[in-house]
């Protein structure tokens, strides 16, 4: 960084002199009569250039705060309009050094707007890096939209390919997205994310065979990483999903079972594995998973579909009483959820009110304290886990950190640059919160529609349950009913102990070390 600064500073001494000489020449050509007032003007410019030189020397000496303040002041001088792109660019780099990424981003945006032949291009590079670290989509899209890949330094091309791929993926241009992700080179820090997104794009394009290859490639590349390595686990679950999409149920079940339990993705894996088990007609196995998914540990998880899936499995094995219990649980749990989402959407229009709810839920999620929520916590927790909301909340967190850094330094806070930074952060924070509010509203609308559909399905399932129960009663009357004996009824406890398993009869108590280890030992009740 210091080397770069040195280069910039050397350049800054050359560039202003050249531009000044050029301006003087132009001045002579166009307005020869203005030669008289040139002396005071030159003197003022000389003073300003001297100040600029001092600011750059401070930057070189590592006095970033003083340099930034001086550059900020100089960037507002009309006399230095020609040097403004350069001043703002260096100011931006100073602000990066001060870890004030959002304020820096604004400097680079200003430089890009000037369309300066040299500094605009450099500012786009810097803006891309800053926006990437902030995770701000708006700035990132602005930077990317002005990128000419051929002019970009090789070290940043991977990042640009990755971000462009993301944009294409969002626009559902899956082929192009996969192609762009494929261009990210192996050594890049974006490589594994790009590989994962490539697999995702291939799945979206309904090319599971290609996706399987991509996820396997990613897994091979992460083979030596720890078992809970995020990229490795993401590749594993991606592979399982690709196999499911390929309708290779058994391979998919096996791939899901390889997702480590002590990772956050395991919860999704166990639910999705239940679907694969259902499709593979492994009902007992699916019911084992449901014992975990419907344990008290998941009371904060929004999983209405899993309850209906469980009731369908019970329908398959003619367990109508169990089915009734699960359907009742679905209605008891998600009936109030549906009502409260509906009421909230009817009575709330302000984006800020939507944001306020997720902010309270985020507070509850990250601390042991409770908050007065208008929406059920399971709903808000689900919304908080959505990618767009998560990313924006992360961005807001970054803005708060930057604001704290400014406020912690009283002298900087009182300076014009400090005040300017606080204003920027305040505006960006407000706008980001409005954006999150809109995202939350969109998710709530989707959830309302989803719950309406699931309620309809629950109605059909209940109808089938009643029909099945009627048939069962008829058979019972005719003496064709089968007993209620469980599969393990005659198997001694020693059987399990000798085989190295812990065996506890389930008495309604859930233990953390048992989650994921439940095995349903009932049997089907169909004739």
């Amino acid at each position: 960084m210091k080397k770069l600064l040195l280069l910039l500073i050397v350049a800054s001494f050359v560039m202003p002199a050249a531009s000044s000489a050029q301006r003087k020449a132009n001045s002579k050509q166009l307005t020869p009569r203005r030669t008289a007032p040139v002396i005071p003007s030159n003197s003022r410019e000389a003073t300003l250039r001297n100040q600029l030189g001092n600011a750059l020397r401070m930057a070189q000496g590592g006095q970033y705060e003083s340099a930034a303040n001086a550059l900020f002041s100089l960037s507002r001088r009309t006399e230095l309009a020609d040097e403004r792109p350069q001043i703002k660019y260096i100011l931006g780099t100073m602000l990066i050094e001060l870890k004030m990424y959002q304020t820096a981003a604004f400097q680079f945006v200003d430089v890009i707007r000037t369309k300066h032949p040299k500094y605009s291009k450099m500012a786009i590079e810097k803006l891309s890096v800053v926006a990437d670290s902030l995770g701000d989509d708006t700035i990132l899209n602005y930077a990317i939209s002005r990128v000419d890949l051929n002019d970009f330094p090789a070290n940043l091309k991977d990042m640009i390919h990755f971000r462009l791929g993301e944009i294409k993926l969002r626009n559902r241009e899956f082929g192009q997205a996969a192609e762009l992700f494929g261009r990210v080179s192996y050594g890049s820090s974006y490589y594994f994310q790009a590989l994962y997104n490539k697999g995702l794009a291939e799945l979206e394009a309904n090319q599971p065979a290609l996706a399987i290859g991509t996820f396997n490639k990613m897994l091979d590349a992460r083979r030596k990483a720890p078992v809970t390595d995020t990229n490795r686990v993401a590749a594993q679950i991606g592979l399982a999903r690709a196999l499911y999409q390929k309708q290779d149920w058994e391979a998919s079940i096996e791939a899901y079972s390889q997702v480590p339990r002590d990772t956050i993705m395991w919860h999704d894996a166990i639910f999705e594995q239940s679907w694969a088990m259902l499709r593979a007609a492994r009902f007992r196995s699916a019911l084992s998973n449901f014992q975990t998914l419907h344990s008290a540990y998941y009371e904060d998880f929004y999983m209405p579909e899993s309850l209906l899936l469980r009731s369908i499995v019970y329908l398959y094995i003619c367990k109508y009483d169990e089915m009734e219990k699960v359907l009742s649980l679905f209605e008891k749990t998600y009936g109030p959820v549906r009502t409260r989402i509906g009421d909230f959407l009817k009575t709330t229009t302000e984006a800020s009110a939507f944001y306020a709810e997720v902010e309270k839920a985020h507070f509850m999620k990250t601390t042991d304290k409770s908050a007065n929520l208008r929406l059920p916590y399971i709903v808000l927790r689900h919304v908080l886990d959505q990618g767009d909301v998560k990313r924006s909340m992360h961005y807001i967190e970054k803005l708060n950190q930057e604001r704290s850094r400014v406020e912690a330094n009283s002298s900087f806070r009182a300076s014009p640059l400090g005040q300017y930074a606080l204003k920027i952060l305040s505006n960006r924070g407000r706008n980001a919160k409005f954006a999150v509010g809109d995202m939350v509203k969109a998710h709530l609308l989707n959830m309302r529609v989803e719950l309406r559909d699931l309620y309809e399905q629950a109605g059909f399932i209940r109808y089938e349950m009643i029909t099945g129960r009627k048939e069962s009663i008829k058979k019972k009357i005719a003496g064709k009913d089968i007993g209620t004996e469980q599969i393990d009824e005659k198997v001694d406890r020693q059987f399990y102990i000798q085989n190295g398993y812990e065996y506890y009869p389930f008495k309604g108590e859930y233990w953390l070390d048992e989650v994921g280890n439940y095995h349903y030992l009932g049997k089907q009740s169909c004739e």
Partner: protein
Amino acid sequence: MLKNGFKAVVVIVLALLLHKAAFAAEVVDLPPEELAQESVLPVFDKPVSVKNRNIITDGRFETDVFYGYAMTEPIANVSKIGLGIYYNTSESSAWGLLLAKNSSGLSSYADQLNQQFSLQFDRAPSPDMTGMIDYNLKAFYGKMSITKSVVFNTLLYGSASVGAVKYVHKTYPAVALGLGQKFYFTKNWAFRFDLRLYAHQAPVPFLAGRLKPAEPVPNYSDFQERLTLTTNLDVGLSYLF
């Protein structure tokens, strides 16, 4: 509506086709990939060891009756019978009152000394009653299974008590520290085991020239006093309500 109806019909038809294959053989056959292959715990926002506890103690009373055995008492009778009542202020703390009545007579060791050396330790003062205020710090809640259908919930706790030990002639302040374990065989009833170390001033029962039949009977005040440590094991039955 129609779309959902169609989905439901597809699922139900699938059910009819698949259910016979799924339960063709009713044997305990747990596929290897479903068996526990890891000893790690799942990740949750706020992980807790147990949910839906069978034994909820917070805000509830507990009474117990117990038999106490003084493991290191050489002379006095080692047995006592006691009663306790506790109030659980939380899932981790309980406060209680213990009262125990010592059995009269001497220990078997004292009887042997009497037979062999004619030492009459019944001339020495012996403990009569114990009353303690007891605090329990409930550290570990767990469970164990010893048969296919029986599960015990267990509770391991530390205890700290202050109170008094009354001898036949005098009462001494006492403190005790200990460890305890409860085994809940129902949601209300439990076996309770307490191991406590008592510390208090107590008369030394050995008094030269005063314990044989021919020697003059000593006054209780003739016995010297010293700090005495006694290890006590209480075994009882506890009821939570």
